[in-house]
């Protein structure tokens, strides 16, 4: 965060390149909605941004307590934004508990905007500060810039004339605060006003009240003396590629990626799925895409989730299933069947903290080795990983392309962090998307030679024989199959051959995936930071920082984990050291050691939290010292 102050004629406006904001309040205070409004506004305004919600782990924890605090974090800026921010610059605290829960993550000297009405005796007690210890008064916040606003009171005053009940009026307090924030960051109200009109199209009084509240908040900023010392801020729009944008979370992007792949391939999309945190929104999003012919099947369990998908894939659909760790474990056997059947199937696994039920609402990257090896027998399948919310779209899309074109299940890894984070996505035009070409065997006549469902092409890929097609009638299953005919075979050499061919086919995917490129930094040098998945933003930021500090450090990020890009070994060889940060105990590290017999530095964080850039920067600095 770098800033330049200019003194305006009338007011002081400080320009900033990026700002991280946390909206925090009680679960009932509508913080997710408020944050989303702010996000939409800055997006339309032209900023780059990244958001992350932080729900309490219970559905409705006791109001006013720290357990009940709901947060929505967002970073927006002029240059590319990759994370919601390691710490925030500004924090909205609607009550004492919200302050207590989040203060530790506010930058030293950061801004706090509080609703003083949320710091009454009851709130202080519930928050754990204690009735006697009001942090707004006792010096706790001396290192921060604190704006104390009696939000509830001001909202009531502003809406006194609406005739609404106090309960309904109080529900508008979040809009008041949002208005204040718009003023503070010199942002327009239009987007929010429009949204409120649409949302409350059938309850005009509520629409009006909310609009009044956000306007009142804005005007309060204008009129109060409170901000005169600090003035306002601006964050110039980002220099973004022109085009149409939408905001997506990782889970939405995954869902749309699958649906888009199906459309592009000319296939019907079928998703067999069982709800599980944090993967359910993929099912939920696709359930809403019936207009695009998407069929979702909410199965009785994860096993049925994957097996219904296998059935649909046998039937000629683009089939997918999504889940998180415990569900992936249950799907293991089914995935083995998909491997030996050699049918296309996309599995999206949204990783969360394990083992077992573990930390179901927290992200982790600890399912990588299960994705690679969690099937009995030698049962290889391609594994790819998404690095950002938007990238979830492309990862799902590519998974589908590989699945269909290589007749194989493909495992696509995202995690609970990507799943819920959002960022703007430049909407691609249909033509920009890579082609996806299923190869269905054509009709055969009675006098054609018999159909060979396991006759492979030169990439070792077998054809797809769609039921309903005359002449392709064939019967396959989980038993080892004879080369070409697909009939059951117990022949020893055939088993060795088929095992080799299945592995070879997957290995050959390396022929069509791009070589790994350096995301940032020199082509060779002291240190390569090799990441995969959701660590992208944090590594990106950290490496930017150390490069700016003059270090010889580069960043490369793996999308393809099985097979690895062909040049991975060579590329790693160009640096003195390789650092692999992971939210697990070193799973990619194991794979790299095994495959390349080199000794990278592993960096594990297994806390149910993503890395932040500072941690990675510190680790890089440590390593460079020792080089």
């Amino acid at each position, binding site marked *: 965060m770098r800033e330049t102050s200019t003194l305006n004629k009338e007011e002081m406006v400080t320009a900033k390149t990026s700002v991280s904001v946390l909206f925090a309040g009680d679960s009932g205070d509508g913080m997710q909605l408020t944050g989303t409004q702010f996000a939409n506004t800055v997006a339309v305004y032209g900023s780059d941004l990244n958001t992350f919600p932080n729900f309490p782990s219970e559905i409705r924890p006791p109001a006013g307590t720290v357990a009940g605090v709901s947060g929505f974090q967002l970073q927006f800026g002029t240059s590319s934004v990759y994370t919601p921010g390691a710490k925030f610059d500004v924090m909205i605290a609607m009550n004492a508990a919200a302050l207590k829960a989040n203060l530790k993550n506010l930058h030293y000297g950061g801004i706090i905007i509080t609703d003083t009405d949320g710091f009454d005796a009851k709130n202080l007690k519930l928050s754990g500060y204690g009735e006697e210890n009001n942090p707004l008064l006792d010096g706790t916040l001396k290192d921060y810039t604190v704006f104390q606003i009696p939000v509830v009171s001001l909202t009531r005053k502003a809406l006194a004339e609406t005739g609404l009940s106090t309960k309904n009026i109080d529900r508008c307090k979040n809009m008041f605060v949002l208005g204040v924030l718009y003023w503070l960051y010199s942002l327009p109200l239009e987007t929010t006003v429009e949204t409120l009109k649409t949302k409350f199209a059938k309850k005009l009084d509520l629409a009006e009240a909310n609009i009044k509240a956000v306007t009142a908040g804005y005007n309060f900023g204008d009129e109060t003396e409170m901000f005169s010392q600090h003035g306002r801020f601006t964050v110039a729009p980002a220099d*973004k590629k022109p085009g149409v944008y939408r905001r997506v979370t990782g889970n939405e992007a995954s869902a749309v990626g699958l649906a888009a792949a199906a459309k592009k391939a000319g296939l019907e999309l079928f998703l067999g799925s069982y709800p599980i945190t944090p993967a359910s929104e993929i099912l939920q999003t696709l359930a809403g895409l019936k207009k*695009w*012919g998407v069929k979702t099947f909410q199965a009785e369990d994860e096993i049925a989730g994957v097996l219904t998908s296998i059935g649909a894939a046998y039937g000629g659909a683009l089939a997918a299933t999504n889940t998180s760790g415990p569900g992936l474990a249950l799907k293991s056997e089914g995935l083995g*069947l998909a491997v030996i*059947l050699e049918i296309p199937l996309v599995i999206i696994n949204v990783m969360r903290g394990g083992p077992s039920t573990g930390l179901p609402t927290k992200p982790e990257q600890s399912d990588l080795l299960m994705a690679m090896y969690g099937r009995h027998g030698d049962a290889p399948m391609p594994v790819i990983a998404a690095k950002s919310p938007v990238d979830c779209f492309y990862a799902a899309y590519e998974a589908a392309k590989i699945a269909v074109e290589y007749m194989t299940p493909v495992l696509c890894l995202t995690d609970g962090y990507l799943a819920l984070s959002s960022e703007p996505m430049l909407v691609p035009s249909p033509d920009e998307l890579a082609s996806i070409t299923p190869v269905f065997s054509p009709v055969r006549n009675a006098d054609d030679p018999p159909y060979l469902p396991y006759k492979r092409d030169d990439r070792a890929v077998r054809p797809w024989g769609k039921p309903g097609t005359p002449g392709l009638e064939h019967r396959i*299953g989980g038993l080892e199959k004879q080369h070409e005919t697909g009939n059951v075979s117990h022949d020893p050499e055939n088993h060795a051959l088929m095992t080799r061919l299945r592995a070879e086919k997957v290995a050959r995917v390396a022929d069509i995936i791009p070589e790994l490129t350096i995301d940032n930094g020199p082509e060779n040098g002291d240190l390569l930071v090799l990441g995969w998945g959701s660590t992208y933003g944090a590594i990106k930021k950290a490496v930017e920082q150390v490069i700016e500090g003059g270090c010889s450090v580069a960043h490369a990020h793996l999308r393809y984990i099985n097979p690895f890009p062909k040049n991975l070994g060579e590329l790693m060889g160009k640096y003195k050291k390789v650092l692999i940060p992971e939210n697990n105990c070193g799973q990619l590290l194991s794979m790299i050691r095994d495959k390349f017999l080199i000794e990278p530095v592993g960096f594990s964080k297994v806390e149910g939290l993503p890395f932040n850039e500072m941690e990675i920067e510190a680790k890089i600095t440590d390593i460079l010292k020792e080089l």
Partner: protein
Amino acid sequence: MTDTRAQLTAKDFTSNQEPKWCPGCGDFAVLQQLKNAMADLGLKTEEVVVVSGIGCSSRLPYYVATYGVHGIHGRALAMASGLKTARPELSVWVGTGDGDALSIGGNHYIHTVRRNLDLNVILFNNEIYGLTKGQYSPTSKVGLRTVTSPNGVVDHPINTVALTLGAGGTFVARVMDRDGKFMREIFKRAAEHRGTSVVEIYQNCPIFNDGAFDAFSDKDRKADTTLYLEQGNPLVFGNEGQKGIRLDGFTPVIVDLSDTTISKDDLWIHDEKDFIKANILSRFFDDPDTSATFLPRPFGIFYVEDRITYEDALTAQIEKTQENGEGTLEELLRGTSTWTIN
């Protein structure tokens, strides 16, 4: 493309793989009647898919010259459900065993039945795990000695018909492997029923559970131990049809029709649409060898109900959303809310 091929015969449904069942296995008869029924139904080989799990009986798909998938143990119904949902126009048949469908596959069983996908389920019940060499199954009788129950089975067995009704089944029938013609007709009724049709077959496994159903198929006993259900007809049995079943309140009692005070009109008339009657019939389940109050074991169609299938309901929803046209790829990519940067 108009199809000019003639109506197919059972032979056309015979694949080039030799069945690998033991000599005398009841599975052969089922295979034959299945092929007969398919031919009778005028099906084409390319529009049929036979799906199965794992077990002796689950080898079925290999022997039918249609499309087929031999899946993994217990999951046949899940696989078939996905296939049928994706491709409602196909004729999907499921071959499964008492172990496959009711032990490891029990969950898919009850859920498939309640969803009522239009599947034809052929459940080979031999009251044993055949393929794995003779362990007891969830339909094995209490006391049966097997390799895993050397002191006799202690688990109370599943009553397939009762379970199916309890799970919301819309078509339930039972047949004996030896009753070829009867089976063929029931298969056809099953196929014609729109919804999940379950046909439980009492299938003898001469190797590991020989004679499990002898009480119902032995020439001398059959007439007294079995009851063939016919729609609209009274429940009569016995070698000369001299016994009947009447209801005393809720209690079914056997009456002697040679007793002139009793007329056929007093008997229970079979009505396959009557859910309560089907439930009572499903409980004609005691063992002829040990039960004092034995009622004959019913064969035929217990119950048929008309209920929308899962895939029809889903298709209707999809069609409704597409009333004004299907969504385009472009609309999909844009979503509901966008902004433009110039």
